[in-house]
């Protein structure tokens, strides 16, 4: 221990900190009025029960959502109107025309089966959403 550490210790000892009899009696009185908290040992069966209850609730909720969505599925989904648009970009007279070929674009064909499926799904989701909203309005 060096001189610095000795001084820290010595100076700390110079700080008066006698515990008064009043403080002692205050502490004793407050300890008598305090009860120790004792943790309740958690039983293994309680934990298992909670696990089962939460699992079953989750499963039931998932089934309910699937049924709710499928219940209101329409017999025929609206078929989207096929639109094919063609835009022709006029070729501007430019000196750099030789370097840049004239631009001619055709929009993508939206009549693909995936697109139809997506639109059907969107319609289903919208119906399910409205159905849930109606149910909620009805409940509250």
């Amino acid at each position, binding site marked *: 221990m060096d001189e610095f*550490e000795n001084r820290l210790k010595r100076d700390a000892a*110079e700080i*008066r900190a006698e*515990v008064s009899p009043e403080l002692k009696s205050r*502490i004793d009185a407050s300890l008598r009025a305090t009860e120790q908290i004792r943790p309740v040992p958690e039983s293994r069966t309680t934990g298992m029960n909670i696990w089962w209850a939460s699992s079953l609730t989750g499963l039931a909720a998932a089934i309910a959502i699937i049924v709710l969505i499928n219940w209101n599925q329409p017999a025929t989904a609206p078929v989207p109107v096929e639109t094919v648009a063609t835009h022709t970009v006029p070729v501007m007279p430019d000196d750099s025309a030789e370097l840049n070929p004239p631009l001619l674009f055709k929009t993508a064909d939206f009549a693909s089966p995936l697109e139809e499926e997506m639109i059907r799904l969107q319609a289903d989701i919208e119906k399910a959403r409205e159905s849930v909203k109606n149910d909620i309005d009805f409940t509250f």
Partner: protein
Amino acid sequence: MVTDEQLVEDSLAGSALAFSELVERYQERLLRYLVTRSGNRADAEDAVQDTFISAYRYLYSYNPRWAFSTWIYRIAIRNAGRQSRREVSDVTDIADDGAPDPLEECIVASERENVWLTAKRLLNQDAYAAMWLRYVEDMSIKEVARALDKTQSWTKVTLLRGRRSLSSELAESASAAAQRESYGRI
């Protein structure tokens, strides 16, 4: 001599005397630290009382892997922190009227300034607590870090900076005192 850990076990088993013995062992040490920290004896006494109540209530959560002193200081430091936050929120405008630090009243009169007064002036509360626990309570770096809820690296760096800062301040004040003395002789 019965160890602190044994007294904790006895207290958990229902012995009121065992906890009284722990109070007896730590009340003065805690009060000394809390007086220097708060600078107000009444607040320090309240903090000591709160510390023992919390310790008694949550004694089951004490982990004997750590020294009891580390655990009780941890509670005391938290209580003191909460108390000082309350004081700051209660008194928003503290006028600096040049009044002396109340801690000075608790220090035995001496020709030179108590090093803990200097430390209180120079260091923040965490650094001050780290210095106190390390050099007054002789705790290891690991225990200091645990008591303050900090990392060991933080503790090492803080102690090093605190030491350096205090040493240079003490050296400056010593040279100033020597100069004054030599002027006095002339």
